């Protein structure tokens, strides 16, 4: 197990006895006193600290504007944190140089609410783009990808059930199909962690479940840790192994899904809130 993992590690990655295999409880992600204040003065995150163990399906809940998106984007520094530290597999993300940051990013897949595919490009190109962090930048000028990689992209598309759409323009797919391309793009990175930012917020309930099931499969079968923000508590309860809740940028809950009772729900979503079920 350890040897296999070391084999797939990129050069420069810490080798030898991998901590994860030695102690399962060793966190994949450690967040300490993370704060983010935007230039306009909005405080999106205030002193957030938590750790994520390998293999968890951690769901982040909270109202719109509670800081869920900012939190996920701080983890791979799409958004620069104002203060605090983030450690991913023991490496300090916040202090990483641009080169180190790119090495960290390629081990963290990301799935977005609006899919963020290049709509004019083919499905295949969109999936291959997930692998760019591993390829020499000069290849981009010739639009070259190794054939073996293309085969793997097709295999990943097969896993999410849309291999027949390989050469279709990504923009012409339905929302659910686009999100599955997004999952395949994250998967080809061979990530240790997947950040999913409201992955089903623009999908209908039936499609939401199918997309979340694919993410759940990556979590269960491939052992990829998932950090997923969701709107609906019912979805969070159904898929999460653990839930954290943000309110106005502060961590207000950290526990098991069934621990969220009426009082806690009101604490997270406000006094007026009524729970809406999604089946």
């Amino acid at each position, binding site marked *: 197990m350890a040897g296999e993992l070391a084999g797939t590690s990129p050069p420069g990655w810490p080798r030898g006895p991998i901590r994860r295999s030695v102690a399962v409880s060793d966190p994949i992600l450690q967040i300490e006193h993370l704060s983010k204040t935007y230039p306009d003065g909005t405080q999106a995150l205030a002193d957030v600290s938590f750790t994520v163990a390998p293999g968890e399906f951690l769901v982040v809940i909270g109202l719109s504007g509670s800081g869920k998106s900012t939190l996920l984007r701080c983890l791979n520094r799409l958004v620069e944190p104002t203060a605090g530290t983030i450690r991913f597999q023991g490496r300090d993300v916040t202090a990483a140089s641009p080169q180190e*940051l*790119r090495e960290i*990013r390629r081990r963290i897949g990301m799935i977005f609410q609006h899919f963020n*595919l290049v709509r004019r490009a083919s499905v295949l*190109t969109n999936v291959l783009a997930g692998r*760019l962090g591993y*390829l020499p930048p000069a290849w981009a000028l010739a639009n070259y990808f190794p054939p073996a990689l293309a085969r793997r992209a097709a295999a990943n598309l097969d896993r999410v059930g849309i291999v027949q759409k390989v050469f279709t323009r990504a923009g012409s797919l339905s929302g659910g199909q686009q999100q599955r391309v997004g999952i395949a793009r994250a998967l080809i990175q061979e990530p240790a962690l997947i950040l999913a930012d409201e992955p089903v917020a623009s999908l209908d309930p039936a499609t939401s479940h199918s997309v979340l099931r694919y993410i759940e499969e990556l979590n269960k079968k491939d052992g990829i840790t998932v950090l997923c923000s969701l709107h609906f508590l019912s979805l969070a309860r159904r898929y999460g192994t653990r839930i954290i809740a943000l309110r106005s940028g502060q961590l207000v809950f950290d526990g098991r899904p069934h621990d969220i009772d009426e009082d806690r729900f009101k604490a997270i979503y406000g006094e007026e809130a009524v729970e809406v079920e999604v089946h």
Partner: protein
Amino acid sequence: MAATLLVYAYGWRVTQIRLGELWRGAHLIRPFLSALAVPDVLTRQPDLQKAAAVFYYGGETPPPPGPGPGGPRLRLSRVTGAIGDRVVASGEGFAPSRGGILWWENQIGQRQQIGTLTTDGQGRFTQAFIAPDVQGTHNMVSAEVVRGVGPLRLSQTFFTVLDRMVETVFLALMGTTMGVLFAVPLSFLGARNLTAHIPAGGAIYWLTRSLFNLTRSIEALVLAIIFTVWVGLGPFAGVLALGVHSVASLGKLYSEAIESIDTGPIEAITATGASGLQIIRYAVVPQIVPQFIAFTIYRWDINVRFSTVIGFVGGGGIGFVLQQYINLLQWRQAATALWMIALVVVLLDYASAVVRQRIV
């Protein structure tokens, strides 16, 4: 209301609108309008029979004519004499019962008509004339008989106009290409969303946009005049004028296209650990290429239309011959040029619309 009325009343006066002129000047433009119906495109070349004989002034005797070919022959009653002499020209071997012209050609090839002629049933004629007052001594008399008309052919004007039209289209192409080559890199500097991430980006953005606006405010026709002073008359001046103007127009359009791209893919590709070059190639370029192509074709379209007038100020292209035809009141030729312009512009308009629809 009263102020608006005043503005228009003043405008009417200063622009010297005199509707009566449209009526009074109608007879001046009528030849042109009727020429539009019959542009000089197809002609029949007259099939001419020619024969010539020499006539010397100043007592010198010309060499006797050699044994000519079997065609028509022209003989003069005398081959040497002085200005004012009466000479009889007689010809044979021409087509029977046809009209023709007798020409006098002086030593340096200048021709003047000295009479008309009609051949008889045997193809012969006799015509007297007075030796005209010309410079030089070695003259030639020639007779031309119109035997018939040749097949219908495209006229010389058509080929001249076509030649200039091709020049015009390529002038526009080169101007547009020059514009694209400079506008593409500049447009990245003129896009606020990209310059925001680099040091001194604000200043670079402001400078680039100012350059675009300043250049665009100068009409291409004015630029053409400036460039004809710089590089001389001809299409190159036109290329430069169109090029400079296109840089500004395209640069602005390109920049706005870049500014309007979806940031989602940039975020997604950045999150995979891609480098700056890879992000541009896979997140920015696919989003802007179709718009860039559409804008470029549109610009070429405008440039073709514009390059038809750039010739008026010496910038080459079809405008140059059009202006000549108009100045010489050669309305049928001018009509040919106008039809050619209309045809090509409409065709390019259509083609560019089709291409743009395919891409965007």
